[in-house]
Structure formats: structure tokens, C-alpha cells
């Protein structure tokens, strides 16, 4: 019952997003789609879509694009660092998401920096989403590591507070570690990476 409903809503949202126009209506921002990504460690999307093109696509096509982007995020999940620059749409960002991230970052006084931050943030959030949905223990552990690797950068970028970051670290580790001693040791190590002295009671509360 739940999944078809969610899928249906997502279709509608994606359709709505692509049916809209860039809020700033800046041609430059649309043109960015399809350009290369300068960070060589990340797969580059070669397809170029304008808002108008996306708006006439079928919902299934758009959903497939979302799925493809999420699959790309999974492929990318073994890489442990943030991107250092973005000149085009990474494959883990769907065309619709790319339009929106460009639109939002264009309103920032430093649009390029903000776009890079948002791209790295959505990359992290996709890993988090994948980890949350993954049921295979082995895959889940790999995704847990992928999430953990990017948390320090989230703190540095002020995408999350140290408190939230530490709470997330503990939640992720708890999902893959059963041994309390090992859990405590890893939690301490991860907390240190974000500049926090680990307190077991604090993290578990």
C-alpha cells in the first residue's frame, strides 16, 4: 500500500519540478547541465536537459532518472571525500535535482561555492538514504562506512551540528556493530574526527 503511494507522489513531484521553470530564469544555470565535472574522481553526466525538455518527459522517464541518480550515488559510495569542484551535473544528481540546486545556489552571494556545497550535501544525503533503505547486511555495512566517511565534512561545512553529527554517527554504527566494546571504540574514533570527546552516555541518550 505504502510504496505505490509514495511512488505516485514522487512522480507527481518530479513532474511538477520539471514542469516548472528556474526561479531565477537564468539561461546560464540551465546550460550548466551536461558540462563536465572537473573533479575527475566522479562520474560525469553527459546528458543535457533544459527545464522545458524535462517538463515534457513522461513521469516514468523522470522517475527512472531519479533511480539512475540514486544508483550512481551507490556506485560513488566507496569514495571517502567531498568533491572539490563542480562544473556540471554529477551522475548522482538527477536532472531535476540539478535544476533545483542551481536555482537555489544562484540566490546565494557565492553561487559556485554554494552549488558545490549543495552537490556534496545531496551526495551525502543520498548515501544516508541508501543506508536507511538497505536490508542486505553486507551492503548496509558498506553504506554505513560511506556515510561515516562524509560526516566530518558535513560538520566543517556547517551542514549539521556536532551534536547531530555525533548522534548520527552513533546511529549508523549501532546498525552494524553488535559488540558494545567495539561500538564504543568506533564511536570514539568517529567522534574524534568531528572534534568531539566521545561520551557513551551522552551518545546513547
Amino acid at each position: 500500500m505504502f510504496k505505490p503511494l509514495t511512488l505516485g507522489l514522487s512522480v507527481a513531484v518530479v513532474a511538477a519540478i520539471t514542469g516548472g521553470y528556474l526561479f531565477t530564469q537564468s539561461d546560464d544555470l540551465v546550460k550548466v547541465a551536461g558540462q563536465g565535472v572537473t573533479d575527475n574522481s566522479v562520474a560525469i553526466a553527459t546528458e543535457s536537459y533544459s527545464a522545458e525538455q524535462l517538463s515534457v518527459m513522461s513521469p516514468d522517464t523522470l522517475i527512472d532518472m531519479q533511480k539512475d541518480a540514486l544508483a550512481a550515488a551507490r556506485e560513488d559510495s566507496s569514495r571517502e571525500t567531498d568533491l572539490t569542484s563542480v562544473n556540471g551535473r554529477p551522475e548522482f544528481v538527477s536532472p531535476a535535482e540539478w535544476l533545483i540546486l542551481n536555482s537555489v545556489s544562484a540566490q546565494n552571494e557565492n553561487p559556485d561555492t554554494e552549488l558545490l556545497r549543495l552537490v556534496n550535501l545531496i551526495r551525502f544525503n543520498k548515501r544516508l538514504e541508501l543506508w536507511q533503505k538497505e536490508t542486505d547486511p553486507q551492503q548496509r555495512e558498506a553504506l554505513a562506512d560511506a556515510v561515516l566517511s562524509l560526516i566530518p565534512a558535513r560538520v566543517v561545512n556547517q551542514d549539521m551540528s556536532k551534536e547531530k553529527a555525533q548522534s548520527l554517527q552513533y546511529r549508523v554504527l549501532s546498525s552494524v556493530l553488535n559488540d558494545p566494546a567495539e561500538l564504543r571504540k568506533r564511536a570514539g574514533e568517529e567522534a574524534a574526527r568531528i572534534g568531539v570527546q566521545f561520551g557513551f552516555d551522552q551518545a546513547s541518550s
Partner: protein
Amino acid sequence: MSDFKLKASALALSAALMAPVAAQAAVEGPSGMDFYDVPSINTTQNGDLIWYRNATVNLGAGAALAKAYNVMYRSTDSLGAQNAVTGTVLLPSTDWTGAGDRPTLSYAVGTHGLDQSCAPSMQLQAGTDYEIRNIRAALEKGYAVLVTDYQGYTTGATPTYLAGESQAHAALDIFRAASQIPHAGIDLNAPSAVWGFSQGGQTAAWVGQIADEYAPHLDLVGVASGGTPADFPVVADYLNGSTGASFLLGGIIGLAEQYPADIPVDQLASANGKAAIADYKTKCTFEFLFDYMNESLSSYTVGNKDLDELLQIPSIGQRINEQNLGGEGADVPVLLYHGTADEFIPIEQSVELKKDYCRRFDKVTYDVYPSEHIVTLFQAAPTVLTWLDERFAGQDPRNSCYSLSANPVSNANPGGGDFIVTLDEWNLDAELHLATLDQTVELPEDTTITADANITDESLVGDLYVPDFYAKLKILINLTVGLSVEPVGQIEATTQLSRDGILAINGSTQANVLINTAGFSWLPIPFNCKTIEPATFDLNYQGPISDFGAGGIVFEGVTEFSELECGWMTALFNSLVAGPGQQYSFRVVPPAPERL
């Protein structure tokens, strides 16, 4: 100094002032507390300036104040005996933009306390007067503002608290006194008005009743009287053993000072009562309010005589009843206003005063506030000042005597328990500023807070209500992404009221953030996307108690939204909405009044 010596000195003062000596030119009074020593100077008429001095007052930053003076002037008490009264004259820095001369407003304060240090003139100097907000508001209007201390704050005297005519005389005579300050520029013939609440409301209403006879030289255009104690036996019964019990004790002390032979408090008071009186005379409002809360008058009297027994003593009953308002009309338009939740002064007897005036074909405007006593004092200011502006402009007031609205009924918290300020569906002017989207989201107008602020046990517990809504996020043209807020759990806070009237609230509330719609503006589609754990909004505030009624309580801060869970678009919305740096501002606004 014993009461006997105080009375002796007061009598000596009265005798000195009564000597018919020609008026002298205004003189500058001494600095420091010597200003409050009554000199041996005779004057010829009520309101004549005895002396004045430049004053430094602290009304807070940004007050529209150009200059201030302290004054001592001749007045008369309720029995017609001459006395000397102190006060403050405040000249605005704001230009008068209305028609005619700059108006002069006599602002009659409410209960301040019987100790000399409680005098409005001293508290204005110290910046501790709890009515500063209303005085500032009047100055901002461009009025010259006169604040009498009332009788009894000169050195060695005791205030004749709640002696209605004495207070009205003081509030009227300060007009002449102010006009005699050299070069102050206050014209005795300028349009004038009197505004007060509680004790000040009593004063203002008395002014309305006697001004024509006592001060016919004034161009009095109206009086605004709020929280008015009009029927003294009724009010006394309401206060006795209740949260406002201290005002009853103060009233007995003050009226005994005015009528020592008829209210022989030395004979009536038990040892406990005498100790309480002595202590009471050393304290100001927010000290005795709590120290004498819920006490019954019988605990202070010989033989534990209760209020009814005291009122049955003819001389006492007569003097108490003499303070009743009504029985004669008001000579000028009157604005009466009262809070339905007033826990100190019952609203019904105020409505009866309105009816009394209406029977005499007076022009009475009546405003009903859904608030308790202290909140109404400050909440009413904008409405009162508008009403005064209209009087100064010569407009006819709305006459509530012809209103078909039902009479208001009290919904005050029951007396005899904790002092609780109830916020019953008060508006919350709330907004969030989303960090990444750099966009401000305003919560709907009918967002409300309902809470009990228990001043006695220092707690505040309540609920936040946010109606179903969505605020459109600016992401793409034609795209509607709706964000809403869903409160979680209760508001929990501590609340403290210091003895100088400073309110402190410290607590928090929680709420989830939702992306609840997405789609074209003409076809928003339900979309269930919600933070996985609620955001915490700290609710910390410290400021004067007047902020409660004036909509000045603002909770501001920065919070963090957890990640959201919403299906396929989770990562996108998390990137746009979740995270730290989310600013919020919640302003607590009392419900609007109703004009009958």
C-alpha cells in the same frame, strides 16, 4: 518615626500651606532627597508650583523625551485640606503633528507602594517604574506627560492610597504646576486629558467626575480609566484572601491615613496586623504583591474581625463607600476598559460604572480585553492613545451606552490560589528563516499559544497550535513546495517575576517540519515528508512585565532541523531544508480587545 509623629508633621504642613500668603515666583528646589522635604512656602491656589528642578529620568533607550522636571506643588486631599504633592513633568522630543496646541496628558499611575522609594518620580529616575512603557508611548504621541506621585511621598508622609478625590486633585493640580515651570512651554490652556489604570483608573474616573468643579480652568477633553475599582466594597471582597490581597491591605492603610479618626487602624490592627502594616510600608508593588498574597484581612485585625464586620462599623463603611465611583456623572467623555480575566478588580463592577454613567447620558466608550489585570494595563495602551488622539482632534467618541453587545463576564482565574496568568489562545506571530533557501516562512495568523504562566510556582506549561497550512518555498517558478510546522508535545518553561518587575521565561518547545505539498500552484499534491525527530525551539526571554501585555515577548533563536524522511525526494529536501542555522522568531501577542 511613629504614626503619631507622621500625622503631626502632616498636620503642621497642612497648617503652613493654608496660610494665605501671596504666590511667589517659582523657585528651583534642592537636589537629592532634600527636594522631598516640604518647605515653608505658601501659595495661593491649587496647583501652584512650590518648587521644581531639572530631573534625570531613565525611560530606556530611544524614549521620545526631550526634558524632564521634578515638581512639588500645592494640592488638596480628599477632605479639602491643603497638601504638597510631588511629581514629574516630561516634555517629548516628538513634534506635535495634530491640530492646535500640543496636548498635555496627566498619566495617573497604578499601585506603586507606600514607601517613599516607590514614588513614581523616584522610580522614573531609577528606570524601575513598571509603567514606563505606557509613559513612553504617550511621549511618542507628542504629548507632554505629567506624572503625579499622589499625596504622601514627601519626606515623613504616608500615601493616602486609594483616597479617590485626593488622587484626582493631585492629577489635576499638576497641570497648573507644570505650566508654571519657567520656559518649559506647557500651556495651561492646552487640550488636556487624564489616563490611568487600576489605582490610576480610579484617579482618572474621579477626575472625570470632579474636574468641572475642581479645575474648571482646564480644557479637559477626556479621561481614560482602565481596570477601575469603582465599587469599593465589591472590590474589597474580591481581593480579600485572593491573589490581590495586598492591595486590600494597602487600601486600608492608605484610607486610614486619609481618615484617621474614622478608620482607626491602630485600634483595629492586631499585633500581627501592626507588624504587617509596618512591613508593608517598606515595600513596593512587586514585593508586597507576593508577600501578602492570599491573606485575609481578618488575620490582621483584633479579634480576627473579617471584612464584613469592618464594613459594618459605620465610620469605616461610610469612608469606604465614599470612594465609590458613579452616583454622579462625568463632565467629559470617558473611556472605560477592563480585562475579563482581571484577577484583582472584577469586571462586573466596572460595567456597573458604565451603566451608571450611561444613565446620566454621559459619553462612555467601553473596551473589553480578554486579559488579566497586568496584561490589560499595557495591552490597552495603543487603543487608549488612539482614543485620546481622537478627543484631542475634537471628534465625537463612540458611545457604548447604545451598544447591543452582551455585557462582559469575568473569566478570571479563581482567587485564593497561585497567581496564574492564563494565555488563552494568544496569537503567536511566528516565522522561520530557512538557512539554505534563505527564505522566511511566516506561520499562519491563527497560530496560537495557550498556556498557564504560574508566577507563584514559577512554571509555564502550555501548547502551541499551528493550523494546517503550507508556505510556498521559492525554488522554481510555478512550483509549489509547501512547508508546514507540526508542534510536538507541550511547551515547558520556568517563569520568574523579580521584585522589580522583570519577567524571565526559560524553556523550550518542539515541532516537526514537514514538506506537505508539492506541485503546481494550482494543483498542490499531498506529500508526506517530515523531520525524523522534532526540532527544539528554546524559549528564553527576559524583560519588563509590561512586555506581556504589549506584545513585547519575543522568543528568538537558532535551531537545527533533523533530516527528513519522504520517499524518493528525501535527499533533495534534506539538502534544502535540514540542518543547523534555522532562525526563528515567536512573538506572543494578546488577543484583540472588543469595543462595546
